[in-house]
Each structure stands twice: as C-alpha cells, then as structure tokens.
C-alpha cells in the first residue's frame, strides 16, 4: 500500500513539474493559453459579442495563427497587475500579453523573458480640467489613484521623492476600479501608462472634461513575456512579433498577403511568406505558411495598431515612437534570413 501511494505521489509529481517544453505542450493541447488584461479599452476588452479584442489580444491571436494556422485557438486568462507573473511562472498561461513593462529586475530576478517591445509607452497623469492643474510639478499634496503591482507605482514614488513633493496614494487593482475612484473624486489624479490614460479617458462619459498632463515621467517599453529558460518557445513568440513588424515594413497587409506571396520579388519577403525556404523555420515547428496565416488572419503591426489604438478609434493614439524605424519610430524587426 505504501508503495502504491509513493508511486502515485511520484507520478503526480512528474506530471506537475514536466513543463519545460512549452511549444510541445501547446501543440499537444491544441490551443494557446494567453494572459491578458482584466479590461482596458484598446488593449483587451470584450466586444459586443463578448469576444475579447484589442492590441494585446491580437498578439495572442497572431501566435495562435503561427502555431495552428488558426487565430481563434486561444484561451484567455484575465490577469491583474499583481497576479500576472505568478500565473505565467506557475504555467497557468503560456504567454503574457498584458501591457507589461520590460525592466531589469523582472527580466533577471523574476526570471521572465521579454521577447521584445510591441509598444513604447511612458507614464503620465490624467486630471479633470476643472482641477486647473497644468503640470505634474503642481501635484504636491495631491491624492493619486494608482494600480498596485505595477512599475508606475515605483516610478511615482521616485518622481515625488526626487521632486521633493508629497502625495496620498490610493492603490487599486484594475483600471475599471481606478476609473470609478477617479470619477468619484477619491483622487485628484490618475496615473498609469499614457496609453492606459488614453483608454481610460475614452471610457469616461465626457472625455473632453479630462486632460493628460504634459509630463511623461518614465520609459515603459511594453512587450510579450514568456517564462525564462525555454528558448525554443521564446523564439516562436519573438519571431511572431518580428513577423508582424516586418510585414508592415514591407507593406504586406491582410488584403494583399496572398498576392505578395505569389508575386513579391524581394527575397526577404519571399522567405518570410514561405515562397523561398527560410533556414531554421521547420526546426521551430512552424509551417511554411506561418507568416501568411498571421497576416491574413490578424494583420500586420500597423493594421493591429490602427484597428485598436489608432486615430480612428476612441483612443486616437498617434504612432509616435511606435512608428516604423523608416518613419522615425522605434519599430525595427531583425532580418528574416
């Protein structure tokens, strides 16, 4: 009997700890487990049909398209700023695509791997126009709503310490709670990444009554995150991101991708779209049409940005730093060679 129990214990032990080969696990499971925001307009929010949509959601869909040729094979897990890393490291999700800032400590001490940057952001402040504040330097003594478990919390402490100002923090868990506290007047100012401010402002009844202060007090490079120590899986996610960025650079979009795959002359485009062999692709277990699947189903980086965050959305965010490098931005994909 004792042996049976020990044996049972050992088997369970083995099954629960064998999670090194994420790629194989995801393939065997047949869908991707992706961690996203609990609700942030433009990045991850449910649409009229209750389907999750947004900039971060589209990245999950792109990875699913690359792996399965089907962008719908994703199961989403909604995570707060506090629960996201635990969920990733415990294997509850395969990929974290949730406005997550790449920092030294997270990369090293928290043992995460940031595969790249898909949104260059910075921390800002939003206040009602009624308050009459023109600059973040005027905020001495203010009450500030802030999401706990984020880098913004730490930046805020630094900023006020350096500028010898005091503040009352009002910590909250999600952006919807932040909005309700801010609108109730519990805090004078809401601070988070500028993109999040744009999303929150768009979600108010009268966006014109609120203003984002001019100061951006930090660098917030946001990107997809995987567990450290699984290079193969990190490669799949990293090159999905690069494929999205490169596709925009080469003007390959969801409407012309089929045509390009047949007619393109540029050797790099031909390698990306599988018209010519791309060395190492099959070793990663990607199909010949992986990039076509991504672009035709999800679009290129520019299309994703325009659809979720761009000028024609309620957020109306300009490309700015997130433009292609040839347009003066920071989006730059390494070559497909």
């Amino acid at each position: 009997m004792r042996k049976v129990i020990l044996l049972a214990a050992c088997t369970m032990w083995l099954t629960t700890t064998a999670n090194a080969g994420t790629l194989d696990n995801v393939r065997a499971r047949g869908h991707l487990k992706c961690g996203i925001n609990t609700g942030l307009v433009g990045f991850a929010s449910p649409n009229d049909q209750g389907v999750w949509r947004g900039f971060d959601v589209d990245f999950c869909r792109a990875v699913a398209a690359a792996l399965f040729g089907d962008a719908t094979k994703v199961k989403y897990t909604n995570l707060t700023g506090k629960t996201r890393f635990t969920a990733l490291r415990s294997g509850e999700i395969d990929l974290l695509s949730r406005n997550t800032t790449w920092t030294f400590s997270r990369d090293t001490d928290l043992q995460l791997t940031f595969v790249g940057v898909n949104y260059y952001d910075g921390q800002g402040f939003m206040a009602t126009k009624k308050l009459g504040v023109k600059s973040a330097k005027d905020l001495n003594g203010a009450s500030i709503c802030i999401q706990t478990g984020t880098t913004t919390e730490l930046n805020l402490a630094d900023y006020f310490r350096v500028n010898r100002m005091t503040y009352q923090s009002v910590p909250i868990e999600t952006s919807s709670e932040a909005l309700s506290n801010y609108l109730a007047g519990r805090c004078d100012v809401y601070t988070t990444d500028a993109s999040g401010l744009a999303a929150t402002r768009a979600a108010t009844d009268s966006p014109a009554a609120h203003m984002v202060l001019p100061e951006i007090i930090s660098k917030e490079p946001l990107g997809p995150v995987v567990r450290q120590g699984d290079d193969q899986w990190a490669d799949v996610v990293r090159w999905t991101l690069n494929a999205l960025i490169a596709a925009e650079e080469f003007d390959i979009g969801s409407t012309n991708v089929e045509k390009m795959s047949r007619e393109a002359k540029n050797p790099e485009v031909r390698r990306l779209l599988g018209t010519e062999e791309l060395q190492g692709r099959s070793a990663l277990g990607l199909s010949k049409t992986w990039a076509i699947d991504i672009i035709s189903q999800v679009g290129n980086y520019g299309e994703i940005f325009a659809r979720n965050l761009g000028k024609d959305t309620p957020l109306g965010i300009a490309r700015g730093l997130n433009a292609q490098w040839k347009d003066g931005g920071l989006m730059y994909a390494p070559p497909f060679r």
Partner: protein
Amino acid sequence: MPPKASRAPRSLWRDKALRAIALQVLVIVAVFAAAAWLIGNVAANFAALDKTFGFGFLWELPANYDINQKLIDYNNQNTHLRAALVGLINTALVGVVGIILATVLGFFVGAMRLSDNWLVSRLAYFYVEFTRNTPVLLLILLWHGILINTLPHPRQAISLGDSFFLSNRGFYVPRPVFDTGFSVAGAVLAAGLLGIWLVHRQGRRAREVTTKNQRVYRYGMVLIIGLAVVVYAAAGAQITVERPLLRGFNFQGGLTLIPEFVALTWALAFYTSGFIAENVRAGILAIDRGQTDAARALGLTRRRTMKLVILPQAMRVIIPPLTSSYLDLIKNSSLAIAIGYMDLVATLGGITLNQTGREMEAMLLVMLVYLTISLTLAGFMNWYNRRVRLVGQ
C-alpha cells in the same frame, strides 16, 4: 470469574484492535505521503525555475513603494520588512477597532432583540438578518462606495466648527500636540489608575466579608484624574491643538481617517455584529427565567439583575462563539485590498510579493502572522472564558 475462552486464531482482518491500528497507520502514512509530495513538488518546481528559498529580500531590498496609512515612520526607501510591519499594524488597527465596535453593536442589538417592545425587537431582527446574510466583501464595497460617492470633495468638505471636516478623502480631526509636562502627568495618571484598581479589588474582598459596599472606586477616580490634571498644570504645560487646514488639494495637519479605513472597519463591525447579537441573545435565553424572577424577588433592579445575575452566567454561553466571531473579523480584514486599504495582505502579500517574485515566502509569512494573531486571540479568549466560568459558579 470464568476462564477466558481460548480464542481460535482469527484472520488479521477480523481482529478489531489490529484493524484499528492498521487503519491509523495507513492514515498517518497517507498524510506524510501527501506532505512529502507537496514539499517535493515545491522543491522540484523551485529547482526547475532556478529559484531559491529565503527571506533575505525582506531586509536586503528597499520597498520602493509608498503606503497611504502609516502609524509608524515609513518611506519608500525603507525595507520590505518595514513595509510589512506597517501593513501588520494597519491590520491590527482594523482588528482592534472593528472588534470593539462589533462587540458594542452586537451586545446592544442582541439586547434589543429581546426587548418587550415589538418595534425595537423587530428592528433588531431586521438588522441581524441583513448584516449576517450579505457577503462581507459586498458590504465593504458598499460602504466604501457610499463614502466616496456621497461625501463632498475636500474643497466643499462638511465642517464642524472649522475643526472637524468630512470629505470623500477622509475624516479630518484636530490632533492634540503634547509637550514635556505631559509624560509626567501621564505617569502619575497611570500609577493612580493602577493604585485604584488594587484598592478596588481590596474593597470587593472586604465587601464579601462585611457585605457593605465600599465606594472607593468612584471617589478614587476623581482624585486620581484630578491629581494628574494638577500635576500637568503645575508643570506649566499646555496642550496645543493642530487643526486640519485645507491647503492645495487636500487637508494638511490634524489626524486623518481615510475612507478605506472607515469603510473597512465599519463594514467588518457591521457584518460581525449581526453574529454577535445572535450569540448574545442565545446566551441570555439560555439562562432560566427563574433566575430573573428570583433576582427581582430579592429586590434587584432590572439593570442590576442583568448585570449581576444574568450576564455573568450568559457569558459562559456567549464567549466561545464570540471568539469565533472575533477570529472571523480579523481574517475577513484581509479583504482590505478590495478597496485599497494597505493591510498585511496588500503590502507583504501583495506589492512586496509582486515586486520581488517571492510568492512562497511572502504567502507563508502572511499565513504565519494570521495564525499567530488568531491563536493569541483564541488563547486570550479561552483564558477569559475559564475566568468567567469560575466567577459564574
């Protein structure tokens, strides 16, 4: 005595004693195997993640975050340990104030519930059914929502005599500022109180012998407090008051009760008082009606009947479930994070955990602290229970 019948050797499985032992051994083995599996699993996962187990992060790293309610000095350059301590004190504050409020409310409502007045007892009945049949998290969110949505902005704060202010950023009250003479006077007062307690105890013993009431307590109190005041005045000291003043965005100075603290404490007290009221009712009803009749027949007033005859006996019934209510209140206070009150779970089990990635260590510590608080409280209540039991008999 007839000789024991020689028993035929039975199969092991049919021997009752042996079977009992075998079962217990099996259970123990199963428990140990489960524990070993859990620990092994953790160890294996730690190894797989290349993680180490240790508490160094508590004092090696600065916390880097601010806390909005701190009863001890703290800034974001202090260690995570200090931050956890601030959180623990915040938890304790909610626990102590909440328990006092819940007890007062609970005893009051419990007594109301037994009132002969129909309206009063109905009101108490509705109060009890409402408080204990709504989820406590909902109550916390409800009270917080009410506070921040109905109270005005600091610039339109409701003011009482320009010293007390009510706003959705908190309740602001003047803060007494004491100077040097105060500590001397405080010491005199403390010594006096201790003295009066001893005298009072002596007096009670004397009463048991002489059956004569010794009225030392009341006069003694006046003397003691008077003496302290005289000493304080003689030391030439005075109390200045720091009043809250609206400066910029918020009130500065004075004492501030933030809405998160008020909402959490009040919601917990509100919720728990329903349970306590029922305990109190059960305790009082458990005492035979004849006790009241007898006390009244002896000429005791209604109040003294309750105080000297009913309550001391009822306490024996009330205390054990009261202990559970107190423990529940303390544990429920961990819901603080829902409204952003920075308690132990929000600091050590929240931000510190998140910034350092030490889930296992932080959670173990938080659990250990709660366990310690609960066991201490339970131990105290058990001691008190034993005491009132002796008095009651």
